[in-house]
């Protein structure tokens, strides 16, 4: 078991840590959030209510959380990784029995002031746990079958619970982020090749199961896949979302239709225009320039995180940073693919832009971990 020794001389302490936070990253996050405020203001018909103002308050709260998390020593987070993971699992089990049902899935616990989605917590705690696990595991044991099986189990446990809700989007995110963590840690290529081969087999099996008694996914999920493969087949039924989303996006053109001039969102043709489909409103009103700018900001956040991970000599820190970057990437990649008609409609919000309390708070807390890793990096 390794431990960290920090040099008092090179590591900032107390309030001075504030100066050593990764401020460019914070600035990028704020810029992305500003896109969100603008769009929420627009889809509300030029009003701060009901979405833009609460979102701004939550972002401010989230930034405070990020800074606090960032100032807590990284070893603390490594040490509580296991507890945090178990806590998230417990919450997932709790919502399984007592959660509030919404959108055909059991997803959240109503805390009164906000709705907590344990699946959000699960993503971050899984990344933390895996980072801690590989920090602890000697490098030469990484590809040993037993030490590969353990993290696979740790990944599948929350994935299964989330899939049960059912929340296909989050399940895919958990699986992919977990897999990426194992990949970063240096697990042998062969395992990934095998899993990919199995994945292909599984997809085939899922399709084969359709209409049989052992059907593996729900009918609505099948329909989503159908409409993804051919949105034109049912333009007013289940293909409606994708069709309208593509129309909104495409009609934005080069420079967009102008702020608050998007007819698709203003006239309610867009579904979930303030949450999962908010990117279409952005693309409709600000066109390619607007959409591309946001994408660039996202890419910069990824680049900053990856660069921070490379700078960091601490194994837990760099794995954690890469893992959180990966989770963040998966959020926007899946969401954008979905609204552009490249992926089926799975409920994944656009990070920091979509309206939603717990997702933003958890995400900013995760970036707090990145900050902590950065502030407390070995020097």
């Amino acid at each position, binding site marked *: 078991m390794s431990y960290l020794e920090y040099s008092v001389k090179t590591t900032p302490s107390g309030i001075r840590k504030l100066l050593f936070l990764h401020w460019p990253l914070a600035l990028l996050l704020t810029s992305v959030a500003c896109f969100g405020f603008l769009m929420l203001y627009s889809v509300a018909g030029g009003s701060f209510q009901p979405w833009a103002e609460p979102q701004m308050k939550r972002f401010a709260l989230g930034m405070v959380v990020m800074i606090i998390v960032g100032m807590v020593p990284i070893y603390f987070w490594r040490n509580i990784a296991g507890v945090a993971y178990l806590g998230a699992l417990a919450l997932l089990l709790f919502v399984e029995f007592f959660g509030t049902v919404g959108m055909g899935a059991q997803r959240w616990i109503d805390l009164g002031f906000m709705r907590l989605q344990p699946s959000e917590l699960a993503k971050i705690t899984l990344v933390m746990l895996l980072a801690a696990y590989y920090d602890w595991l000697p490098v030469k044991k990484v590809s040993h079958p037993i030490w590969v099986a353990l993290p696979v189990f740790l990944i599948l446990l929350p994935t299964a619970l989330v899939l049960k809700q059912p929340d296909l989007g989050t399940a895919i995110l958990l699986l992919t982020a977990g897999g990426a963590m194992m990949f970063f840690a240096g697990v042998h290529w062969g395992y990934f090749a095998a899993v990919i081969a199995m994945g292909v087999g599984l997809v085939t099996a899922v399709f084969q199961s359709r209409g049989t008694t052992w059907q593996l996914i729900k009918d609505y999920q099948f329909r989503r896949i159908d409409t993804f493969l051919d949105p034109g087949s049912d333009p007013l039924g289940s293909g409606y979302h994708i069709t309208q989303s593509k129309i909104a996006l495409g009609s934005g053109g080069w420079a967009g239709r102008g702020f608050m001039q998007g007819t698709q969102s203003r006239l309610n*043709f867009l579904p979930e225009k303030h949450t999962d489909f908010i990117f279409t409103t952005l693309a409709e009103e600000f066109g390619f320039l607007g959409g591309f700018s946001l994408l660039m900001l996202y890419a910069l956040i*990824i680049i900053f995180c990856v660069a921070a991970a490379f700078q960091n000599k601490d194994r837990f820190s760099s794995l954690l940073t890469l893992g959180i970057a990966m989770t963040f990437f998966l959020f926007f990649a899946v969401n954008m693919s979905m609204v552009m008609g490249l992926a089926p409609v799975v409920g994944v919000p656009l990070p920091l832009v979509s309206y939603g309390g717990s997702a933003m708070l958890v995400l900013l807390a995760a970036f707090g971990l990145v900050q902590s890793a950065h502030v407390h990096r070995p020097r």
Partner: protein
Amino acid sequence: MKRPGKDSAESARIISRRGLIVGGMQLGFAAMLAARMRYMQVEQADQFRLLAEENRINVRLIPPARGEIFDRHGLPIAQNEPSYRLTIVREDAGDVDTVIARLSALVELDDEDLNRALTEMKRSPPFLPVTVADRVSWADISRVAVNAPALPGITPEVGLSRGYPLGPDFANVVGYVGPISDYDLSKIEDPDQLLRIPRFQIGKVGIEARLEDQLRGKAGTKRVEVNAVGRVMRELDRQEGQPGASLQLTLDHRLQNYAQARLGNESAAAVVIDCETGDLLAMASAPSFDPNLFVQGISVSDYRALTENKYRPLASKSVQGLYPPGSTFKMVTALAALDAGVISPEETVWCPGHLEVSNRRFHCWKRTGHGHVDLKSSLRESCDVYYYDVALKVGIEKISAMAERLGLGHRFDIPMSAVATGRAPTKEWKSSNTGQEWVVGDTVNASIGQGYVLASPLQLAVMSARIATGRAVSPRLLKSVDGVEQPSGAGEPLGVDEALLRQVRRAMFEVSNNRRGTAYGSRIVTEEFRMAGKTGTSQVRNITAAERARGVTKNEDLPWERRDHALFVNFAPFDNPRYAVAVVVEHGGGGSAAAAPIARDITLQALYGEDPPLTAYPEKDRDRIKALQDRLKRERPDFGTVGKVRT
């Protein structure tokens, strides 16, 4: 930095390498997203823009105002009246049941309408107005408006609906509109989009139907922006349509009303035509009906009452009814013979009361005979034998040709439904239509307007006008369209010697001005308005030899539908003919008793332009006429107020 050095370095190297690979893949994916975005937003932008426009823009039709119809003095006969209805918007009403309950306390609501509205409300989006009461009176609308605060969601709406302020007077000429039916729609090739509007009103009969294309106008369009559930957000632009053409008829509302009222409940028709211009001043057909019943769709019981009435109120008898003209045809026979030169006006014929033609005995209406008759006395006393004799001399072909010159057997193109052609029979017509040869008896029958001869009241009026003027006047019903005067009906000279025509007119004058004339009882006393006319009584049954032997059954003793038709044609004033009138009373009995008084009264009304003074009438009739005038005056609407928009 107290980590086991080698392990740490090895680990950092792996993480860096794999982080780079995954980071590269992430950026690659982001680039792919950017490319996809560019493809959709730059390359395919136009296509998507179009789809977005189609999504949001809805084109709505603006129905044009239907053209209005006026009489020759500009009084509206068919107009667009505001029709009020009450609608409810569910989302504004809140508690629909309470609002409806309050509303029914103010306005009488039809249970059937209400149930339909409640069902419709459940089906449609909450923001769509649903009609709860149709054809609401202005008083009810006012009461609702006053109580508006207690009736959230209830809105009075105003639309335009056809109204016929003079009701039955013009029903048989103007016709009526009604809601378009699937059957109507199926008959029209490539129908106007307007006709797809549910319950859109189209002309069903009469002028409304014949001139539908002109009256309807062109629809305007408005483009509205709608949201995903179809709620109209705003109007983007509108293109006004073109209202239908307004029509002015040659009819005179006073005269039309008078003629209609004078015919009363008889099954009868009367036509008044201007002798010079051919303008139709009145086209009455009785009994009539209220065309307003049809506008919103007539009830089954009302419709059955109209169709089962044996007096056929829905028929326009003035143009559609065909009758044997009887003795009113005698001018045709006389003119044919005079024009052909086979007789002279002074030539006499011996009337013993009958004439034997090829072993068949043809009777004169006067069993004892008229003795020696010439043109004047034969027409005056309506001797039949004279015309049998003359017809045999001139032949059917010349009679038929003269009938056509005078307007019989010709279909006049006036904009009404079912304008009948009538018949001026020829030998060729009979053989090709009945397969039988023309026999001389047919000529004898035709000479007095029986047998195969058929004419409509309109044709008889035209005939009378042509005799009066010696010109081929044609009837004109449409005075102007959108202020553009239509061609007059004044015609070329008939080509009949004026001296002969004068003899016939003189004889017609004697009909109503000589003590021995058949219409002397219905004469006009006023010197300058004296009229010339001819009575007609046409049989609708055969009188057998046996019946004739025991005495012809009197009309009063026959069932209505077997009685003779009564006819009268005239023109007046005799010296300077202005109006020609034809009256037919179906199964009315004798022309002199049933038709002539009506024709005389209508003629006087036309000449005076108002109720004539009693001095225009023979002295002994004045009391009776006074009583009639008073009765009709009481029933007459106040023309000063009809036609104004009723509120």
